[in-house]
């Protein structure tokens, strides 16, 4: 059986189809889930895709965290289910307190839309399990608020607990320690600014996103 992956859609989400198509092209079964849903227990994994949930009003993710589905994401994550937030989904997970830190405006105040080179920094999270540390991946970013920040104590904890999942080879947005993605303590909730679903076909310029999405689908398949 192909693992079933729920792709959460908020008003203003716009990458849900990219995520669904990419996951299905890799053998998963992906379904869109409206943000009003309060039960995700039927799924093997959950994706919070990119976009502008609730118009990004106030701050990206600030309103989305009050959507009913967030309670379900919390329950799903607490039970060990694999969750990944991509771009706006990462911002939502931070605002919801499922991941530490915050994403502020890019250094230089420019919207960035470009391929970047990432370096895998962790080989145990649901997005990088089995991917060798140091692996370089070319994956696009597409954001204004991608400048990851947290206090010094949190940063030290992330480093010591091996929770930095991917780093930028060349820091494009001012993120502390070049962080492109982090995980929760258990490693089953990951957020990252780059869009692996947009690097899954040679026509898109890179297929390096497949490495991460395959690891995520494998994590979904082994969910207990």
């Amino acid at each position, binding site marked *: 059986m192909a693992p079933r992956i729920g792709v959460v859609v908020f008003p203003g989400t716009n990458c849900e189809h990219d995520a669904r198509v990419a996951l299905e092209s890799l053998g998963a079964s992906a379904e869109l889930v409206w943000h009003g849903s309060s039960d995700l227990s039927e799924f093997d994994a959950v994706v919070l895709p990119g976009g502008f949930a609730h118009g990004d009003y*106030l*701050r990206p993710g*600030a309103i989305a965290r009050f959507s009913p589905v967030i309670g379900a994401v919390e329950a799903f994550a607490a039970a060990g289910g694999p969750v990944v937030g991509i771009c706006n989904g990462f911002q939502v997970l*931070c*605002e919801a307190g499922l991941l530490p*830190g*915050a994403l*502020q*405006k*890019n*250094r*230089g*105040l420019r919207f960035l839309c470009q391929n970047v080179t990432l370096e895998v920094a962790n080989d145990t999270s649901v997005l990088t399990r089995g991917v060798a540390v140091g692996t370089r991946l070319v994956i696009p970013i597409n954001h204004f608020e991608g400048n990851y*920040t*947290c*206090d010094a104590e949190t940063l030290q904890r992330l480093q010591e607990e091996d929770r930095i999942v991917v780093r930028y080879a060349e820091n494009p947005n*001012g993120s502390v320690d070049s962080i492109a993605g982090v995980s929760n303590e258990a490693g089953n909730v990951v957020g990252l600014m780059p869009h692996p679903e947009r690097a899954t076909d040679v026509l898109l310029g890179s297929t390096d996103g497949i490495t991460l999405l395959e690891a995520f689908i494998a994590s979904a398949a082994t969910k207990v």
Partner: protein
Amino acid sequence: MGDKAMFGVLVEVQLRPGIADPQGATIQRALPALGFDGISAVRAGKAFRFEIDALDEEEALLHARVVADRLLANPVIEDATVTVTPANGESGA
């Protein structure tokens, strides 16, 4: 027991000291073009005004503080200051 009265609330949200504020820095760099060279420490932020029903000013402040800290500001990067004033008009009685 006490009738509720309406209070005006002003919440000002600013990036915390030490958090880079590229917007404030950009505004500051534009000021010499307007003829001002002596302006420094520009910080950009947001202001929110709303009205709140409460028993007294203390309760109004308490509730507004929760709104500020749990929604209007992200405490990881922002600080909020809350000011409460008795609203004009219908507070009466």
